[in-house]
């Protein structure tokens, strides 16, 4: 502790307060001492100062020491403040009640000065360790926040606008850094590249992997129009990057190129959940013989496939975070692909797809989800 520890003494007898203060001063420990004569004063001081220790008498005029103790130990901000309860000599009942209220130590009246000083020293030492841990936690917390901000900056700042295409994106990272990432690449006036991926793993490592992917994308210009080759190159580069690391990183990715002039969609898949395509009559899946996730083995090839699109069609790309939600009346975590959400015997209507999207955004607006939630829908307008 860089500063002097702050100690609060609570007793309704002035004489007792003076005595405790005198003992503590005699001990030579540099302390800042605060005194409270009743519960009201005690609560005010606890809220006003950053305390490191409380010496608490049981009998107070307006409340009991147990109540103050319980309040402190149940309060998120104050629960780490150690408390020594001062009880009548050998009153076992008092002691049990104090323990129940969460007291850390006990002293019996009349207070022995040596015992007092030893207990105070021990608890202050413990508090100083807790304070250090808190500081380190706060520092890590701040750094994680920076990484979270950094990761957000890699995402597209706005959704591309076209006359005859409507693109809608929902992206909600889990409390901290998550691993979902997407990007739009305006290749030329008529070709739009869409990448959606899920970096397996969380925390700072996944933010760094996201950054790597973002930079690799710039470097893969020659492959923008060839999804298979694009993923092949990205896989080799990520595999190289992951070599010599903790081993368990990999990335599922889906990359497709929308040709706005000919209304085609050419795509390739690296272990990512197959996107849906509403083709005017039902929901299909963009299933090709998809390849392994990126970054596990080098020198793999990825097939690509093309579908013809029509006015009114809608593409639905997503990451598997949505299956953490209880969608369409199903229990959370029971599905692992979007087609499992629907009754296969009947064609899925565009209305059902819209309802699904609404359901996802409602959940996301209401609750904090453990995994990232991300979907992109692309609708072809006339």
């Amino acid at each position, binding site marked *: 502790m860089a500063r002097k520890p702050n100690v609060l003494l609570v007793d309704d007898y002035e004489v007792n307060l003076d005595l405790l203060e005198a003992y503590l001063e005699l001990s030579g420990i540099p302390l800042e001492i605060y005194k409270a004569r009743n519960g009201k004063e005690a609560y005010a001081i606890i809220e006003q100062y950053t305390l490191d220790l409380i010496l608490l008498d049981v009998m107070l005029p307006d409340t009991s020491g147990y109540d103050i103790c319980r309040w402190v130990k149940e309060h998120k901000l104050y629960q780490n403040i150690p408390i020594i309860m001062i009880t009548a000599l050998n009153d076992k009942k008092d002691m049990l009640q104090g323990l129940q209220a969460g007291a850390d130590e006990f002293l019996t009246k009349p207070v022995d000065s040596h015992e007092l000083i030893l207990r105070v020293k021990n608890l202050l030492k413990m508090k100083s360790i807790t304070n250090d841990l808190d500081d380190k936690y706060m520092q890590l917390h701040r750094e994680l926040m920076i990484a979270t901000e950094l990761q957000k900056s890699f995402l597209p700042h706005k959704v591309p606008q076209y006359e005859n295409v409507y693109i809608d994106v929902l992206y909600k990272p889990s409390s901290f850094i998550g*691993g979902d990432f997407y990007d739009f690449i305006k290749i030329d006036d008529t070709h739009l590249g869409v990448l959606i991926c*899920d970096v*397996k*793993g*969380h925390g700072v490592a996944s933010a760094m992997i996201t950054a790597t992917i973002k930079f690799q994308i710039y470097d893969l210009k020659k492959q923008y129009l060839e999804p298979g080759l694009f993923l092949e190159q990205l896989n080799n580069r990520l595999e190289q990057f992951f070599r010599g690391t*903790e*081993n*368990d*990183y*990999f990335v*599922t990715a889906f990359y497709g190129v929308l040709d706005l002039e000919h209304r085609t969609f050419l795509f390739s898949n*690296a*272990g990512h*959940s*197959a996107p849906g395509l509403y083709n005017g009559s039902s929901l299909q899946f963009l299933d090709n013989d*998809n*390849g*392994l*996730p990126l970054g*596990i*083995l080098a020198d793999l090839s990825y097939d690509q496939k093309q579908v013809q699109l029509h006015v009114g069609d809608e593409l639905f790309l997503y990451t*598997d975070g949505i299956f953490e939600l209880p969608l369409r009346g199903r229990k959370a*975590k*029971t599905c*692992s*692909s979007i087609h499992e959400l629907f009754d296969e015997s009947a064609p899925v209507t565009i209305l059902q797809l819209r309802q699904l999207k609404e359901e996802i955004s409602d959940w996301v607006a209401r609750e904090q989800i*453990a*995994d990232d939630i991300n979907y992109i829908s692309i609708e072809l307008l006339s």
Partner: protein
Amino acid sequence: MCQIQIEKKENYILATLQGEVTLGCTAEVKEKLKEYAELHKQYQILVDMKEVEFIDSSGLGVMVAWFKMCNQEQGKLIFCALNSHVSRIIGYAKLDKIFNIAESIEDGEQRLQ
């Protein structure tokens, strides 16, 4: 929550994985098997997955980590007795293309021979 139990057999390691293999418990189980394999220099490994109820992407990460470890050490890793949910998840991620998967422990043992 998930847990792992590890036993040394005559010429392989049998690891039994149980519970929900999701973020929060994966780091510990991953390291346990890695450390055990390194300690015994044994990279012939059967993983009994019969009691794995649910697996998410970080659970897949654990499987990939073990796979890479055994590959690097020229060993053999076989995942045994997967329930239908776990096989589906592995299938969607196309990891069934590279993982060795056996119907049962006995089947896995035979494949190690």
